[in-house]
């Protein structure tokens, strides 16, 4: 009886190994054949922005893309809630934090090396579960009259003259990613010290980065902690009436964090080949050129031309940081709450 069980067990194990090899072979086969079918993308990036690019992809590949738009964080929370049963194939997030959270939950499949290696190591997950597609730089947007000489390092923000004049978006993922970066760079104690100083400045809380930028432009506050492209979007929409300007941070300053919008393929995808083909397209020349032209973001694949209003990415010298470390948002939130910057 015992022997029989063992024999059956061995047979099953052998069958599994064979089947496993077979799967691998199948995978390689589908990899070389052109992917097709339908994929669902959960996108934290707006439909108006991404749809033309996705339509182009669909036309060129014959793959149908089902688009579900939403807030990156809400979609991340939705993916975490759905778990293995998610209908999503690709998650396209506005920030690395949401990607990190989904990756941490083990819901992503590793991307092929030749894809992730298109972008510098700093802008992708160490385990290749997601890759950055475009970069957004933290800046200080300022009103030229209220703040003719804005600080270019975060400790300068703590000077008495800026008390009550700084705007930020406490629940914004990019702000929280900056604080996470600060924790990584200066340690929890160092980050706490800066945040306590910042809280003592009585900064003005807004719901969105766009509102911070608008408040600076309207002269309600002098400085705003936002991403670099908000200003260029406003100028593109409203023209020369915009007075606010961007202050890029000094080399290596934590305030100049370069965060990414990026994508990962869900492990639960039932059409992984097509999902990977989409990430391939987004990180390919057409995708990269599109982001550079439409969003004033930094394309991350080398050789793509950057919008001419931007200082070159290479000149910014952002703080040396592994974006994969930005997934400790829980601790960041606890710290922010503790110093009174998340909830008052």
């Amino acid at each position, binding site marked *: 009886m015992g022997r029989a069980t063992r024999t059956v067990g061995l047979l099953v194990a052998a069958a599994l190994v064979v089947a496993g090899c077979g799967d691998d072979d199948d995978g390689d086969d589908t990899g070389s054949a052109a992917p097709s079918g339908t994929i*669902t993308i959960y996108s934290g990036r*707006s*439909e*108006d*922005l991404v749809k033309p690019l996705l339509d182009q992809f669909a036309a060129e590949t014959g793959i149908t893309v*089902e*688009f*579900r*738009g*939403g*807030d*990156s*964080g*809400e979609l*991340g*929370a*939705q993916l*975490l*809630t*759905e*778990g293995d*049963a*998610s*209908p999503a194939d690709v998650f396209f997030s506005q920030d690395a*934090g*949401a990607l990190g*959270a989904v990756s941490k939950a083990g819901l992503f499949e590793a991307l092929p090396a030749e894809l992730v290696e298109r972008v510098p190591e700093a802008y992708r997950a160490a385990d290749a579960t997601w890759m950055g597609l475009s970069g957004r730089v933290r800046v200080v947007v300022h009103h030229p009259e209220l703040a003719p000489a804005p600080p270019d390092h975060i400790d300068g923000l703590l000077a008495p003259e800026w008390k009550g004049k700084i705007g930020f978006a*406490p*629940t*914004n*993922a990019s702000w*929280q990613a900056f604080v996470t970066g600060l924790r990584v760079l200066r340690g929890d104690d160092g980050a706490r010290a800066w945040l306590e100083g910042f809280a003592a400045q009585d900064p003005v*809380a*807004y*719901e*969105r980065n*766009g*509102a911070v930028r*608008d*408040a600076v432009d*309207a002269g*309600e506050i002098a400085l705003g902690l936002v991403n670099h492209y908000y200003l260029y*979007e*406003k100028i593109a*929409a409203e023209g020369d009436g915009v007075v606010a300007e961007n202050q890029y941070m000094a080399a290596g300053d934590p305030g100049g964090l370069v965060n990414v919008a990026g994508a990962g393929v869900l492990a639960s995808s039932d059409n992984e080949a097509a999902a990977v083909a989409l990430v391939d397209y987004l990180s390919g020349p057409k995708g990269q050129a599109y982001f550079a032209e439409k969003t004033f973001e930094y394309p991350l694949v080398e050789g793509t031309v950057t919008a001419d209003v931007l200082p070159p990415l290479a000149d910014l010298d952002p703080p040396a940081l592994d974006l994969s470390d930005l997934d400790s*948002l*829980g601790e960041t*939130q606890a710290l922010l*709450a503790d110093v009174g910057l*998340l*909830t*008052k």
Partner: protein
Amino acid sequence: MSIAASPSSLEALPAPALRRAGAVARRRRVGRRRPPLALVAPAVVGAAAAVVPLWYLADRATSQGWSEVADELWQRRTLDLVVRSLALAGVVTALCVVIGVAAAWLVARADLPGRRVWQVALALPLAIPSYVSAFAWVSWKPWLAGFRGAVLVLVLASYPYVYLPVLAALRRLDPAHEEVARSLGWTPRKVVLLLTLRQVRPAIVAGALLVALYVLSDFGAVATMRFEAFTWVIYGAYRAGFNPAQAAILGTVLVAVAVVIVALEAHVRGSASFTRLGAGAPRPSRPLPLGRWRVAAVAFLVVVLAAAIAFPVAQVVHWMRRGADTGFDVARVASAVGATLRLSALAALAALAVAVPIGVLAARFRQRYVHVLERSTYVAHGLPGIVIAISLVFVGVRLLRPIYQETPLLVLAYVVLFLPLAVGTVRSSVEQLPVGLEEVARSLGHSPARVLARVTVPLAAPGLAAGAALVFLATMKELPATLLLRPTGTETLATELWKATSISDYAAAGPYALAIILLAAVPTALLSGLLTARADGPGDALP
């Protein structure tokens, strides 16, 4: 014979048939019989659906272990949040009671010029989404941000929840009491304060309950006004913190607060005295001359309507004109209008189907479990939309996969969100029907289900229509559940509006905001129209 004046939330818009029957509702014999299974079974299913979010909350809240729960609760911050949210709910509810009762009394009792116009117009603020009016105000005067701005917007958005039931109750009161009191030498002021208000107290309390729960669950206004209420923090925990456990723990606290408020309402209402009426229909009251207060009364109503309707609409039009050169996609707006109308109609019908058995049970039977069934539909109403949405993601993807991100599950989410609006109206409209008619039908050999279909529902039809209209209205403005659960490719007016505002494109948001307001005005006017229909009924002595 006695009648309980309006014991439930949004007041029954009374059945004209009632008067034709020449009867008033009676409570005798009610509640002794055992409820028929034909009602209990669907009511249990409906109430079970309404408490699905609680199951999810309990599961998630304890997912990190009880010590996490204790840590989260045992914080100064959590207590602060409770205090802040209760302060907001308390102040808003009090102001809504003042404005809602004053407006209802003026429309129902005073010699206001153009009463019918005021009657409809005063309900219209329900058509304006709180996030639209909040943004309109704060973009005009940024210093409004914070507690006062949140109070302003929430009061203007939700006083109709008091105004409508109180107006209906006033219309149903027999004016003979007030006339007797006046003939005994009471001043008009004394009549109002000591008699009229007491008589409509159940309606006031019921309306106040809806306002309080609405304030607790609102996100749009507090977020735009940057007031850190519970909902704001819960949203943050989900979408920036990826901390469903923390969100669920805080959500559970919110449920506890809602339970206390619901219980409090039942307590306050339970001790209210029943209004005694003579046999037959109440005669409409003669308008009371306001004299020199007439101008002040009109000015008050004008200010309320200007702030609640004219200002936000003007701001929306202003955004649109600023972006006029970019134009907007008519086909896209039309398709969003179509999807919104379709989903709202489905939600209204589904909510009504669930609300009828629950509301009829609550109106006709006094068993304790019936009470629990009815009240359980209210608890989820105090939860923010994102919690309901995530909980249905949780349940849908596991148990209802074939309809996940399809219309049926989205409609189910709307039912869970807005069921109390329909249950309240069904209950109070059925309560006004004479039990005798149902008993006669039963004695003629009809089954309970047949009595429900052939007698109760047709007689209560105007009240049921009002309940459906309220759900329709609420669904049109709903965002978080729509965003997470809508069928892929379906965009409603609310999601299009969100898309535009999330990239700060307010010019593009304009057409969608305006379309929501205009479309929502239709069911809102219908609500008041059902009231007007009664005032215009036979024997109406109004000029």
